[in-house]
């Protein structure tokens, strides 16, 4: 499954980094602690978080993550968005909370 395949089903906003919408998804990782993601998220995962700053993209890019989903209607900071465009990491948004988003993504990927 590719990042673009979950956008309609999960009703996600695409904020930027759309060059990466063809990234293959291997799973998800839900965390707001950057070192946790740095240490444990594997490549191809979708990162679900409430962090909206530029360092999120630095980590997503270094770890070759598939995309980032911002929860609770949060929007990316301007420099996060600029970095996402540069690195080609899709930044997506949902009004759902982390629990619901994680559950929906899990169901999509497991079924």
């Amino acid at each position: 499954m590719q990042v673009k395949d979950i956008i309609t089903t999960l009703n996600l906003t695409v904020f930027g980094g759309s060059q990466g919408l063809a990234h293959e998804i291997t799973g998800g990782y839900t965390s707001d602690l950057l070192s946790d993601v740095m240490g444990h998220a594997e490549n191809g995962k979708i990162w679900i978080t409430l962090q909206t700053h530029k360092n999120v993209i630095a980590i997503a890019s270094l770890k070759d993550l598939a995309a980032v989903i911002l929860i609770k209607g949060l929007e990316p900071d301007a420099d996060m968005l600029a970095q996402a465009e540069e690195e080609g990491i899709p930044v997506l948004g949902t009004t759902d909370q982390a629990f619901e988003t994680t559950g929906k993504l899990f169901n999509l990927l497991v079924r």
Partner: protein
Amino acid sequence: MRFEYTIEAGNFSKAGDASSSFKKILKQLNVDPHIIKRIVVSLYEGEVNIVAHAKGGKVICDVDTSRVTIQLIDVGPGIPDIAKAMQAGYSTASAKVREMGFGAGMGLQNIKNNADELIIKSEVGVGTQLTIIVNLNKA
């Protein structure tokens, strides 16, 4: 081959720039992707530590055929108790840094878990030097 980067104190918008740049070099050198990941995690955590805690510093990355040696050298304030700093969950990060999702006391653990060797030398009032070694030959 030697690559050097300067790390600015407190400038989180540049945190990760050295890691990103060095990752591209390692890719060009055809280093195994799993080994690149381990190097990049270690370097990134070291970089963020300098941004968050030090008054600035530099990174020196040496690549030879058998290993990558990364030296992260900062200009203080130094770590009073290295054993304590190495404990998972222990952090002296500011509230602002924690709000960003850093400062969870996982950084040095991440380095330890990904490096083949980690040497920390620190003197209060002088600075800290981390030496990280990752072997390039698969075990």
